[in-house]
């Protein structure tokens, strides 16, 4: 691959492989499906979570014996998103039947005990086994606790005591992670989906241009041309890399679009996703596409048939999944050496970019450089395979 002629020939091979595989409708559809399905499912799930969060802000409280504590009921009514409902006949049965998720019971002696500054009981009927209405029940609990604290403070003030006396210890939580980081942890699936796209995107060409070419018998005809084997290997690998890059860009684009639709604000996340984030993600992952395509082309060339090559691809795809799973089990901290490991480096870069804390350009350059070196080594192996008669004629 030293002469300009060889590079020109590699480009001819690249264009042919790209055009050829774009015409393979079925393969194209399967790539699109695998690229689209992840982001769409994630977006759907995020929207559900947001809906639930929104629902928790609007609670409906049926009250038995509302006349026993008119002031409390009036206070509740004034809180935003609270609806006071008429009491059901049998509160416990209503909750059991899931007609209501919570019923408050104010006993007749409430007013009397309240006036006497004795703890006045309120019963909350709820089913803690129900996961789906947990946010609503929790909100109702917090409403009563809030009322409790307010009245308690007023009483102390009325007796000339500072309410601070009743608070011997004040627990203050200091959250270290920025809101963006917390959001990124929740959105940890996005880096995984983008890594997966770098694998699935190149799979089709990598197998079709090597194992497929041989199985069709077109490899021999191709090798008759005065083209160095290196130009063939480079052209085919780059064609695969190009589709991987496209798949990555499409996946990142869809994720970006979804993030705009998902009401992250309502989930308590201040999460922005703009062009700098998109650019950062591209800079992090595009070099990886060279490695995935080179690795796949190399392994597919070794395979004895197209089917065998495809089954190897299925095993290869476990690699990014492993990184993603390990990344969620052991939260990855930024160690400099990680940028030198293809895939792990990209995963770390992606999470950092999404978390709003993009590392310096040196990390990007280091990660990209190792990818280029790894890809070059793999292509060398593929070239040597293309020189072997045993591989070409499938003996």
């Amino acid at each position: 691959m030293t002469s300009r002629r060889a590079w020109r020939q590699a480009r001819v091979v690249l264009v042919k492989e790209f055009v050829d595989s774009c015409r393979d409708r079925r393969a194209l559809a399967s790539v699109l499906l695998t690229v689209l399905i992840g982001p769409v499912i994630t977006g759907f799930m995020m929207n559900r979570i947001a809906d639930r969060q929104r629902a928790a802000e609007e609670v409906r409280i049926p009250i038995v014996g509302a006349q026993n504590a008119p002031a409390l009921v009036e206070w509740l009514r004034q809180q935003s998103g609270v609806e006071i409902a008429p009491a059901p006949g049998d509160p416990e049965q209503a909750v059991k039947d899931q007609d209501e998720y919570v019923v408050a019971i104010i006993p007749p002696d409430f007013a009397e005990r309240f006036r006497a500054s004795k703890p006045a009981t309120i019963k909350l009927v709820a089913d803690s086994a129900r996961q789906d209405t947990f946010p609503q029940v929790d909100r109702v609990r917090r409403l009563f606790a809030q009322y409790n604290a307010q009245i308690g403070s007023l009483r102390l003030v009325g007796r000339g005591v500072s309410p601070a006396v009743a608070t011997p210890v004040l627990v203050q939580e200091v959250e270290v992670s920025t809101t963006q980081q917390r959001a990124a942890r929740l959105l940890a699936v996005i880096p995984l989906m983008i890594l997966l796209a770098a694998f699935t995107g190149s799979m089709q060409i990598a197998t079709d241009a090597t194992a497929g070419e041989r199985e069709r018998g077109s490899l021999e005809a191709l090798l008759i041309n005065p083209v160095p084997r290196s130009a063939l290997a480079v052209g085919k690998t780059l064609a695969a890399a190009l589709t991987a890059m496209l798949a990555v860009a499409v996946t990142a684009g869809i994720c970006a679009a979804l993030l705009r639709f998902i009401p992250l604000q309502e989930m308590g996340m201040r999460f922005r996703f703009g062009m700098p984030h998109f650019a950062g993600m591209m800079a992090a992952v595009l070099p990886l596409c060279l490695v995935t395509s080179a690795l796949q082309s190399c392994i597919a060339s070794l395979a004895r048939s197209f089917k065998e090559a495809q089954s190897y691809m299925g095993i290869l795809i476990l690699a990014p999944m492993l990184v993603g799973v390990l990344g969620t089990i052991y939260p990855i901290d930024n160690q400099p050496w990680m940028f030198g490991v293809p895939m792990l480096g990209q995963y770390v870069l992606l999470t950092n970019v999404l978390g709003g804390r993009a590392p310096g350009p040196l990390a990007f350059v280091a990660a990209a450089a190792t990818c280029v070196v790894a890809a070059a080594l793999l292509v060398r192996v593929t070239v040597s395979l293309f020189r072997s008669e045993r591989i070409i004629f499938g003996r």
Partner: protein
Amino acid sequence: MIEVAGLEKRFGSVTAVNGVSFAAGDGRVTGLLGPNGAGKTTTLRMLYGVMRPNAGTISVDGIDASTKPLAAQARVGVLPDVYGLYPRLSAREHIRYFGELQGLSKATLAERTEELFELLDMKHIADRRAAGYSHGERTKVALARALVHQPQNVLLDEPTNGLDVMSTRAVREIIRKLRAEGRCVLFSSHVMQEVSALCDTIVVVAGGRVVANGTPDELRTQGGHENLEDAFVALAGTATGGARR
């Protein structure tokens, strides 16, 4: 002009080609004749550079194929045993792909493509995808692809195998035309009529060796039979018995 000397090719313990030597001159049609498994395809594969011989030399127009394989390949056009067309590409795209790999300029390529469409009467399939081609149509595309860079030497591996009468005639026409242009045509076949109808020189191979080499008339005398087919059976038969272990 192709010159081969002492060519050998082994696959493990099997010797497929065992010291083949011959020359195929310019402006002549040379036939490589032999029964199935005689080593014809292996010999041709070494000539067009996809297999390396274990011993022996190949020279194409005076270029040593082992030291300058790409230069030698550039002077050869090949119709291989298996065409290996791409089902999703059209005839035009097949010709363009190989033409570009040969390094033809855009203008030359466009001109050559039209010439070949005319020569092989394949205008009607020019922009159709190869998936639906008949066997004859596939042969035409493979031939056009082989001739796009106007090679001085043309190698054809059993070119008329499985073709109907019309297509066979067309292929023969092209072989005669190439000879008239002063090119070196070398084709392999196991069909006697074909070889006797077309060839100026016949190289009979059997069991990986050249058992006879000469004009059809010379072969008749060598084989001791008036009929070329009988001569061939006599020549090939003795060699096969000796070479097969």
